[in-house]
């Protein structure tokens, strides 16, 4: 191989290495979640869910009246079920993404759909409740649901789109326990 050809081959190899480096996805992408859906309903590997309503409220009260709290609350009503298996079929992590900020569903509110056993073929109706800063009142939010806590990896995460602009606002909302189907 002549001297010129060696230089050309070397340059080509350097270019190939640069191209491979540029095209290689970041290491974290190996474990990223799969976002599924972008409307009012979505179905993934372990969860199916549909938004049925949403309300802002200044006060929420548990179904038995023993617990109440004031704040800027967003109560999201939805139905959920398990597409295939009831094993580990729960909404373990529910987050609200709005304006680049992520809020986790409140864990101090009783009677929510979070960590509730879901059924295959039968919807469970319930609510998820988010405690928000006072200025979160408009824009389009995303409700993301998954059966894995904290960091969903290599699994579906449901994405439900929720416009906040025209939501009704109530002074007080009394929560109901999740209900399986419509008896």
């Amino acid at each position: 191989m002549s001297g010129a050809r060696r230089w050309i081959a070397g340059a080509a190899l350097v270019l190939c290495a640069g191209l491979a480096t540029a095209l290689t996805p970041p290491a974290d992408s190996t474990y990223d979640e799969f976002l599924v859906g972008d409307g009012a309903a979505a179905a993934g590997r372990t969860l199916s869910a549909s938004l049925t309503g949403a309300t802002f409220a200044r006060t929420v009260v548990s179904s038995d009246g023993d617990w109440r709290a004031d704040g800027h609350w967003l109560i999201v009503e939805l139905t959920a079920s398990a597409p295939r298996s009831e094993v580990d079929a729960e909404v373990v992590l529910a987050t609200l993404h709005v304006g680049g900020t992520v809020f986790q569903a409140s864990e101090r509110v009783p009677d929510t759909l979070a960590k509730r056993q879901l059924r295959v073929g039968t919807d469970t109706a319930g609510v998820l409740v988010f405690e928000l800063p006072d200025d979160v009142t408009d824009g389009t939010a995303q409700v993301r649901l998954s059966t894995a806590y904290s960091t969903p990896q290599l699994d579906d995460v449901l994405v439900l789109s929720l416009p906040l602009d025209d939501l009704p606002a109530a002074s007080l909302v009394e929560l109901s326990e999740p209900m399986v189907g419509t008896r």
Partner: protein
Amino acid sequence: MSWWRRQRLALAGLAVAAAAAVSVHVWFDVLPTTDDAGPVITASDGTAEVGGHRLSVEGVEWGEFSAPDGSTTLSVTLRAHSADEAELCGTFLLSEAPSGREWLDARGDVDVRTDDERSCRSGSGAYRILAVFLLPEDASGPFWLDAPIGSADVLRIRVDG
């Protein structure tokens, strides 16, 4: 002697190394792994003895309990005898053979009033186990009722819809 001929040994080594790298990646990162759930013991005639328990299907009943619209209940009653040293049982699981859908006991969502056990217990001469599943109306079976017994065995009983 050409460059390729002079470097044939190095090129062959490079090819072997590349093949090994791809194989290791596929082996560890691409091929799915399976959990060894242990032996599955099938009760072909509806009766089986596993881990100190003797279990047999006493009855299968649809719609025994009230269910939401679009759903129904499937109750499976087992007659059980368990030795003093019988192994612990896990959660019963009902699976639909054609679709692969799986249901857990739904007593938390169905109004069931009975003294029957939910799972097996040790040191009992004769008792009944009642498993109640909440199924959609399009579930028609046939079904498998899986009962994990001990740390390794799974007792599988066929349940016809």
